[in-house]
């Protein structure tokens, strides 16, 4: 035991004792290349104005500054956009779950006439591009006086999230053992009660995935919110990202701080729920 190897290499060992150093090195290179843009986003958001407009490009903040973050958080318009983003995301998430989850349950567990057609409708609508829906929805919402409200983008965004929820959760519901339901029914649980108290908890992982993804669908949306809500004070963060670009120069540090705040929910989701999301995302898209 006189040769003690490097602790990092020891760490790379899997439980079966393989080191796979070559694979590890390749994986680290990939990580460096793919995470570099995120590193760039964060470090640039911590640079001072003079560093941003300086002659040479710096690869880490030489004059560390929180100013770009403070500029954003002390800006009334920013806080309003942040509120708009949150409200639009929550509203579209609630709408999507309200209509999506029961339908996924129905298609997954009941043998009804036309079940396949229903599933097909959701598979098709999942693919519809926002660009196609923008014009007719804009004109319709204009007639209904919904333009300039949170409902317009929330409804439009949910039109993509509901199909996603149905397609993703159907296999989850299908996989729950029938005996679980039956036992509940014998114990006197009604349909509604067994749906809420037996089925939903049984597919927690799937529910977490669709909750998170349908929130992010709303949070990440640009096209619908920007088109339906023309007034700047109704716009979400994604649509106002332009505001630090002017003819006098682009304040990239402020833009990056702004972007970092927008990315934050995504990173949080990943840190805490990575396993669930990865499983959930692949469940509906590719046939097993």
């Amino acid at each position, binding site marked *: 035991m006189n040769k003690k190897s490097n602790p990092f290499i020891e760490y790379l060992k899997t439980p079966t004792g393989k080191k796979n150093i070559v694979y590890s090195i390749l994986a680290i290179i990939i990580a460096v290349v793919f995470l570099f843009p995120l590193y760039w986003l964060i470090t640039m958001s911590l640079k001072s104005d003079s560093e941003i407009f300086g002659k040479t490009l710096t690869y880490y903040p030489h004059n560390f500054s929180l100013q770009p973050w403070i500029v954003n958080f002390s800006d009334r318009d920013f806080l309003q956009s942040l509120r708009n983003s949150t409200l639009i995301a929550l509203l579209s998430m609630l709408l999507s779950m309200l209509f999506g989850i029961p339908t996924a349950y129905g298609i997954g567990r009941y043998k009804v006439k036309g079940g396949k057609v229903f599933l097909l409708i959701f598979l098709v609508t999942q693919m519809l591009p926002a660009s196609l829906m923008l014009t007719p929805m804009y004109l319709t919402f204009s007639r209904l006086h919904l333009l300039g409200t949170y409902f317009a983008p929330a409804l439009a965004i949910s039109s993509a999230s509901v199909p996603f929820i149905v397609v993703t959760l159907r296999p989850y519901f299908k996989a729950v053992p029938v005996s679980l339901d039956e036992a509940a029914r014998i114990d006197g649980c009604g349909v509604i009660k067994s749906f809420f108290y037996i089925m939903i908890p049984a597919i927690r992982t799937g529910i977490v995935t669709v909750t998170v993804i349908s929130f992010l669908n709303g949070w990440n949306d640009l096209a619908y919110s920007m088109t339906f809500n023309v007034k700047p004070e109704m716009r979400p963060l994604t649509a106002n990202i332009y505001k630090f670009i002017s003819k006098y120069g682009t304040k990239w540090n402020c833009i990056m701080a702004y972007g970092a705040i927008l990315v934050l929910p995504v990173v949080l989701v990943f840190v805490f729920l990575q396993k669930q999301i990865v499983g959930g995302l692949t469940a509906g898209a590719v046939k*097993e």
Partner: protein
Amino acid sequence: MKNKRQRQQALEGYAFILPGVIYILVILGYPLVYNVILSLKNTNVKNFAKGTSAFIGMQNYSNLFKDPTFLLVFKNTFIFTIACLIVQFSLGFLFAILFSKDFRIAGPIRGLVLVGYMMPMSVTAMLGKNMFGVSEGVINDLLLKIGLVSSPVEWLVSSKTALGAVIAVNCWVGIPFNMLLLTAGLTNISQDILDSASVDGARPFQRFWYITLPLMKSSILAVLMLGFIYTFKAFDLMFIMTSGGPLNSTDVLGTYAYNLSFTKYEFSQGSAAALVLFVCLFVVGLFYLKLITREDD
């Protein structure tokens, strides 16, 4: 008695299914039909308010296909989509194979790489705009330092390179996505089959070619078609990163249709362009549906 129970079951089923179906038919089906009607009219911002728009048949479509800009946009959309598909599928597959190997840091790194796929496209596009900047961009700075170029490349300023830069940014998002879906397919292949092939003397490449690939056929097809559908409808990326410029070199069907409707306020022309986008998606979408619903009870 049994009949009654079956009827009860069906009623329950419909009670769960129908609200969602009706919701989607109203919120998507109606605009879809309305879009077709719009594309056959001459609706713009003036006559929409007055309600004096009229049917003009296929006029909008014939105008589109006579317009050299539209033809360029059509070409751009296909170049963008196919280039992205090739890069993100091949690299995504290689990464999926690497990360399906048994080593300690495979899981955490695979997860980290996915953040790019999940973050808002508008931030990704803004980041791309910065990194591909001529003087302030880190990509030029690195290329100059390594000595690959002697003067800064005008990535987003030149109509020759802009589409390439946009493709690169999209691949940064697309590769993790392809990797994720292909990893799912790879892990479904039983290790026993591969092991027994090794025992029979199959080399790694033979195992890949004769066992892995055929077993993953449907998963590969699904990933390619899904990739096509997601890439072909790109909008946010070009809208923020280049606004379709310079000289329409990064203009795609999504941004082109948007500008017709909401910059020029020619709603009918916009919906005709959007419908062309939809038809292209629909053709590929049909194959995807056929694949994914096959043998599904």
